[in-house]
């Protein structure tokens, strides 16, 4: 019995595709290249197999994703996850929100903020720096983007430098991309 999830959760759900994933046994050389399939690596998620229908963008998407979320310097990995969570709140991507909320909590050892964010949303009472980061990510994620000079000034007042702000812009924007795939090409289910 599966149940489609409608509310934010910290328990990472299963992602069920609406679009048929590419069958690895019938994948084209370009798809195998984009998927980076090797004899020892055939474990590929349904999500990535769905994206393999468009091998040309997938080829760049994976290194771009890893660069934005994990490269050295700039904003801490934990705070980048809040950029991802902010976008996922706006776009209501339950799956992305769960995965990146969990990563934030693990990386930061902060066990209370995510619960507040999921319960209250962008106005949750958080430590000022975290609140400024979340607010900025949420406003940048609107269509049209609504972050303004005041939101940026608030980041600077909380001590964020340009390198950190750039990484926040990138992580929140990246999830404007990821949410639009994850939330529209499939749905989160609990077993």
């Amino acid at each position, binding site marked *: 019995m599966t149940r489609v999830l409608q509310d934010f959760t910290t328990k990472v759900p299963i992602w069920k595709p609406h679009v048929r994933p590419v069958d690895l046994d019938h994948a084209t050389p370009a798809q195998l290249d984009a998927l980076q399939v090797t004899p020892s690596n055939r474990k590929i998620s349904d999500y990535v197999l769905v994206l393999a229908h468009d091998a040309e963008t997938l080829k760049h998407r994976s290194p771009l994703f890893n660069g934005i979320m994990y490269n050295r310097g700039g904003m801490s990995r934990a705070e980048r996850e809040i950029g991802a969570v902010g976008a996922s709140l706006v776009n209501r991507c339950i799956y992305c929100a769960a995965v990146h909320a969990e990563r934030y909590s693990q990386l930061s050892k902060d066990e209370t903020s995510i619960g507040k964010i999921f319960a209250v949303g962008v106005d949750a009472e958080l430590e000022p720096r975290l609140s400024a980061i979340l607010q900025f990510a949420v406003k940048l994620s609107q269509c049209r983007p609504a*972050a303004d000079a005041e939101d940026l000034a608030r980041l600077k007042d909380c001590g964020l430098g*340009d390198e950190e702000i*750039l990484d926040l812009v990138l992580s929140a924007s990246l999830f404007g991309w990821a949410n639009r795939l994850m939330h529209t090409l499939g749905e989160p289910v609990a077993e």
Partner: protein
Amino acid sequence: MNDVILRLSGIDPQSELAKVIAKRADIFELTQKTHDAALRPADPGGLSHAMRAAIACRIASLNDDAAFRDHFGAILDQAAPDETERQVSDLDYRASDPRISALIRHADLVAANPRAASGRDIELLRQAGIVEADIVRLSELVAFVSYQIRVVAGLRLMRQSA
């Protein structure tokens, strides 16, 4: 660095901000490669280069971003669009062709209000004769352009506050 993002965010290549951006040169290079793969892929499938540029124009308009609208409009011109493809770039266009109407409806939904999308919307694309691979190609185009517009929106704020 010569790419769409720096140009559209109006950042002086000699500025301090440009130096900060240069530290993430790999990210901006991959972003440019994805831009080219989404707008002008070698294998466009069922979405012509002109149709992709026209849809990107719509997304720029939905985000109220004139610079991106001009950018994708120039790509549309280069792609030798037919009359319909040119009309698709206009938010007020009402397509009579059911396939094009379904493409436009879905692109606008995913760009402007992705939280409202569900499995039913994918089913509507299928009913209009759009195959699985083209559903993913359309989704990647809309999702990528939405990302790129936000990166530039953020960089413009950084430029203005520098």
